[in-house]
């Protein structure tokens, strides 16, 4: 790719707040005219990245280039970038028109003159140059300063003069926009957002959707190179949001400027973007087109976050053959034999059929009518599989399931961390992984919080209480943090499983303990075990990292 095409380029950008790394070594370029979306759960650093592009935060490390020019430390008012804020941030003391005109009234443009051929020439600000020349003369005549001081000052002034002459844009004469110019620009912007009839209204009299439009008009009227949108649709109701999504997309095509959009709503991201950047914990997980991200998620996190998906632990058992759900499937991705992998199956890719006519059988445990189709939860032994199908089947019926090779997406397993996407919090504030309760530290979900005697999670300022019982969480444990207990009857053995995989890695073994429920615990040990040994598993409570599947606020007591 030609770098000149990049409108903005983030190079190794990191942001650290009070010792916490919020954005970690972020590398991204955005092409001119692209609609790019930062997608991720709250706290993943997407808004911080956006704010660094806007100039409200400065990176702790790395640099930001705008059309190849370093703008890392440029204040926001000097950047040709405008932002649509989460809660619009319209000025309540101004009406619609004045809000939109706000930026234009501050803007200064170089005065354009035409030379005799009709070509525009930029008028050099002679006053500025004259002033500097005057200063030089004064300094030369000055008798108070020592020679050395004089020389220093002269050098400085000469440099300034050279700079002015070399960079004529520094010396242009600037003027403010005329009222007519402002008026026509405002009128055009308001027309784009369909608000031309409301220009005299006070902000407080507008609906949420209208305020949203004013916020967009206020930003685009300045003709920015990049438009930043920070969850702009978050405060709107569902229907309004859908309409605005389409309108934004249209607007993007019409205006032809670059949009950088931040959201935690995967559907929004899929609908609108040219490119999606999936983020987690300040790191980029995957960059790609919506289709790529949906069809070829790079890891379990992306698969889980984008769309609905079934994720299973699987093992490659043969060339282009994978085993999961106790069944062997043919697949299209080639991985080495016996490699532990994650398999993603999208609910709409599973076809229901009659018993024994599919690859495997299951029992329908739950059915929700969703309008276009039914959403079934199907139990296969102890595993759940989410399936979407248009046909109606009765509850508790045994059905056959067809999973075609092209519906099975295989991802390399991340062997650094065990990720349990279907963990939940029990009544006594333990995290249940594979239905086994592990002690855990819930206060990590909210910095500075603590657990009170009644078992509520209480925020630092004691203002909010959360009841996390039954909350669905994603639990992560580093492979180094899983302890193997030899005595499977001891209290310490929280779960018992069989060693199904054993790899010698130079100085230690990496082994996989599989429980009866087919949950895998990948761990490392310096000791020798045999395949199919039964061992217990324990995890130190501080080593379990938790992430809520929903927003914390939903659990407020």
């Amino acid at each position: 790719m030609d770098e000149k095409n990049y409108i903005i380029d983030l190079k190794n950008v990191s942001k650290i707040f009070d010792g916490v790394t919020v954005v970690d070594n972020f590398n991204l370029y955005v092409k001119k005219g692209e609609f790019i979306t930062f997608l991720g759960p709250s706290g993943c650093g997407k808004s911080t990245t956006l704010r660094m592009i806007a100039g409200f935060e400065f990176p702790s490390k790395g640099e930001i280039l705008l059309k190849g020019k370093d703008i890392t430390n440029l204040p926001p008012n000097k950047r040709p970038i405008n932002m649509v804020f989460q809660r619009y941030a319209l000025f309540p003391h101004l009406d619609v028109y004045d809000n939109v005109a706000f930026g234009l009234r501050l803007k200064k443009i170089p005065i354009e003159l035409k030379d005799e051929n009709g070509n525009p020439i930029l008028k050099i600000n002679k006053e500025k140059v004259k002033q500097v020349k005057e200063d030089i003369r004064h300094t030369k005549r000055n008798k108070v300063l020592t020679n050395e001081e004089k020389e220093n000052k002269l050098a400085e002034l000469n440099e300034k003069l050279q700079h002015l002459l070399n960079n004529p844009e520094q010396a242009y004469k600037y003027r403010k926009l005329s009222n007519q110019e402002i008026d026509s620009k405002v009128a055009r912007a308001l027309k784009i957002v369909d608000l031309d009839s409301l220009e005299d209204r006070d902000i407080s009299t507008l609906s949420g959707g209208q305020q949203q439009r004013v916020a967009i008009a206020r930003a685009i009227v300045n003709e920015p190179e990049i438009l930043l949108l920070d969850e702009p649709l978050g405060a709107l109701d569902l229907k309004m949001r859908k309409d605005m999504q389409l309108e934004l997309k249209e607007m993007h095509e019409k205006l032809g400027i670059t949009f950088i959009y931040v959201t935690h709503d995967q559907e929004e991201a899929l609908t609108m973007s040219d490119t999606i950047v999936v983020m987690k914990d300040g790191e980029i997980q995957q960059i790609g087109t919506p289709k790529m991200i949906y069809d070829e998620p790079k890891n379990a996190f992306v698969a889980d976050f984008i769309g609905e998906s079934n994720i299973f632990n699987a093992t490659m058992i043969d060339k282009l053959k994978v085993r999961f759900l106790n069944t062997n499937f043919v697949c299209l991705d080639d991985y080495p034999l016996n490699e532990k992998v994650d398999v993603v199956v999208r609910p709409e890719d599973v076809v229901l059929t009659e018993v024994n006519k599919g690859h495997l059988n299951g029992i329908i445990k739950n059915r929700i009518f969703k309008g276009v189709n039914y959403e079934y939860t199907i139990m296969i032994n102890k595993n759940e599989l989410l399936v979407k199908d248009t046909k109606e089947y009765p509850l508790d019926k045994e059905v056959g399931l067809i999973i075609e090779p092209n519906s099975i997406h295989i991802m390399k397993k991340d062997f650094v961390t065990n990720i349990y996407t279907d963990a939940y919090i029990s009544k006594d504030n333990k995290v249940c992984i594979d239905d086994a309760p592990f002690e855990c530290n819930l206060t990590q979900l909210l910095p500075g919080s603590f657990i009170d005697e009644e078992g509520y999670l209480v925020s630092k300022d004691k203002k909010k209480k959360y009841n996390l019982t039954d909350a669905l969480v994603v639990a992560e444990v580093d492979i180094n943090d899983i302890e193997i207990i030899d005595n499977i009857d001891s209290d310490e053995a929280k779960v018992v499983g069989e060693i199904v995989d054993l790899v010698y890695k130079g100085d230690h073994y990496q082994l996989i303990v599989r429980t009866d429920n087919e949950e895998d615990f990948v761990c490392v040990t310096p000791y020798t075990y045999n395949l199919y040994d039964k061992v217990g598993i324990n995890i130190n409570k501080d080593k379990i990292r938790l992430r809520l599947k929903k927003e914390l606020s939903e659990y407020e007591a």
Partner: protein
Amino acid sequence: MVKKILAYSYIYIILFLMYVPILVLIAFSFTNSTYIGEWNGLSFDLYVNLFKDTEILVALGNTIIIALISSVVSTCLGTLGAIGAYYSKKRSRAIVENINQIPVVNSEIVIALSLTVMFVFLGNYIFKENIFSFWTLLIGHVILSVPFVYLNVKPKLSQMDPSLYEAALDLGCSPRIALRKVLVPQITPGIVSGFMLSITLSLDDFIVTAFTRGPGLLSGEANIETLSTLIQAKIKKGPIPMNMRPLTTIIFLVVLLAAIIVTIVKNKNKSKVKMRRGRVG
């Protein structure tokens, strides 16, 4: 219904009692008796006398000048302080807030005494002369009202959407211009009420004035006399001076007018026709 009548009669009785002293004073401003309670027939002599009474006029002038100047100073200082503190780190904000609270809860006489002690100390050991003047009085009045300006502005700042300021920067304002064009308009109601409160506090003050005043203003070489100190000096010796009665009437009317304006402003809905500059046709 009976309850309503009962409630209203209670309110009106208390209101009546609260206004009795003032109304009596006003009533007796239309006669020329020396003592209240003695009616010498209708007369406007006192009103004529009031405008010849330089003592009262000087005090009135001083009072107004001090109230205006000290309120302007307090409002600027307090508003800037509130803005600055609001955007400071938590720790420094807590420090400013706690110090700000001291004059709010402290009794006036302790404020007055402590300031005076300091002014005497400064006069004795640093300036080597008596420094009591208009300036010490001004400092006294500012200390009295500035914490309340702070307290009036602060809630407006916290009610404001913090991204407004960022939006202004984003649209091209320098920090200073953003402050003036976006922040200040947002907190104007707080600034105005802080200013008004400063004026009332200054107009009403006796203790701090009595302690911290020196010569100056309209009083010339003599100690500055405000309405409060003048009336206090007079009523220590006898009844309220006769010429004060018509002044009471005037003050009452001004206050009434102010109250009406405040009430109207509170109920008023803005409706104005907008003119667009730059609109052609």
